[in-house]
């Protein structure tokens, strides 16, 4: 990714951006986020198949925004996140430049977010076949088997909120889960709070999740919490024709159609 290094260096030298967000070599063979603020920092930028963290999570942070205009190394899921964040007025052309990396690992710089949107719209959000199988398997279970499945899966969760921290869409300054007056989610590592926390997380991501799996990758216990968001994506498709992040237009869950169909209201 020499193009990326070169371009990042140019941007920082000319002060076109104040910080370039990308990946660098971390410890234990892993990659970590790099915030390059000086031209020489750009030499540390890397990009390979290990770079799966969704960097869009940083662009809503005060610490990054306060530096000035940001440039971000963005794979397809990151670009989708950025468009969703822009549609929620979290980023705009004045504070963000996208250094796209195409699915073919080519560097592609975008002049503005509208171009990113056009690019992103070439690719539909598609649930991986292996996950579709998992969803089908769960659907075929009885409700009480599903209940046991989730209680088993969620019992080890100790609510470290790594899933929340890794998700670009979870940018609220104060999250419902942090409230204690009233306390919506019981704090202890216990089935009840765990169940309610994961229901809450999935509902808040309904119509916004772009299926990057950052939550699942971040979970230290490997709990398949991304099954919940994937279920919501599939349901949105089945009930409302699906969605994809867009700069213009209504969000899936903040709009309605008078003829939305259901079969359970008496």
């Amino acid at each position, binding site marked *: 990714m020499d193009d990326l290094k070169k371009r990042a260096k140019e941007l920082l030298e000319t002060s076109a951006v104040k910080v370039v967000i990308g990946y660098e070599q971390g410890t234990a063979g892993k990659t970590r986020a790099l915030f390059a603020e000086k031209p020489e920092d750009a030499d540390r930028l890397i990009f390979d198949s290990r770079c799966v963290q969704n960097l869009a999570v940083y662009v809503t942070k005060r610490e990054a925004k306060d530096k000035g205009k940001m440039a971000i190394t963005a794979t397809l899921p990151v670009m989708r996140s950025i468009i969703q964040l822009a549609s929620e007025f979290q980023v705009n052309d004045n504070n963000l430049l996208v250094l796209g990396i195409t699915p073919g690992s080519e560097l592609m710089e975008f002049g503005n977010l509208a171009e990113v949107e056009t690019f992103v719209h070439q690719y539909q959000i598609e649930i991986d076949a292996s996950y579709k199988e998992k969803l089908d398997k*769960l*659907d075929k279970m009885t*409700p*009480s*088997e*599903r*209940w*046991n*499945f*989730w*209680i088993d899966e969620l019992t080890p969760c100790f609510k470290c909120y790594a899933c929340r921290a890794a998700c670009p869409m979870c940018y609220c300054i104060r999250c*419902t889960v942090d409230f204690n007056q009233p306390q*919506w989610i019981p704090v*202890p590592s*216990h*089935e*009840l709070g765990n*169940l*309610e926390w*994961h*229901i*809450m997380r*999935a*509902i808040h991501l*309904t119509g916004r999740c772009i299926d990057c799996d950052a939550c699942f990758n971040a979970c230290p216990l490997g709990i398949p919490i991304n099954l*919940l968001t994937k*279920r*919501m994506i599939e*349901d*949105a498709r089945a*009930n*409302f024709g699906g969605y994809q992040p867009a700069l213009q237009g209504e969000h899936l*869950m*903040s*709009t*309605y*159609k*008078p003829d*939305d169909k*259901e079969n*359970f*209201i*008496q």
Partner: protein
Amino acid sequence: MADFEPKIVAFVCNWCTYAGADLTGTSRIKYASNVRIIRFPCTGRIDYMLLLKAFDEGADGIMISGCHPNDCHYTSGNFHARRRWIMFRSLCDFMGIDTRRIIFSWVSAAEGARWAEIVNSSVASIRELGPYDNYKNIAKKPVMETENHG
């Protein structure tokens, strides 16, 4: 389980179902007393977390009711609510929460008799299902357990 009386929490909108339930009373129609009614400004204001809290506190079933589509006092509150219920109910189902215990309905201010019917049929179906042990087991308060030891 013959003497089991289900506890049901009903979340209703102020403008239609609450007025409808009032009409049930003023029409002197008798219906099951298992329902505790909570009045909301609109079905669009019923947060799904409140529904979960009802189960936490030991409800065996939940009823949610508001104005018929196109009759919302605020024009579109029930349309928004409907979209949310579709997704919420599906997620609950996916997590194994018994969706037969969550009963949605549209009851207008003129449908006092219908409210009585829906309550009676809901109470009957939830009585059949029995206490909601799955949720009650995880919702047990740790404090209660230590009290039992003493």
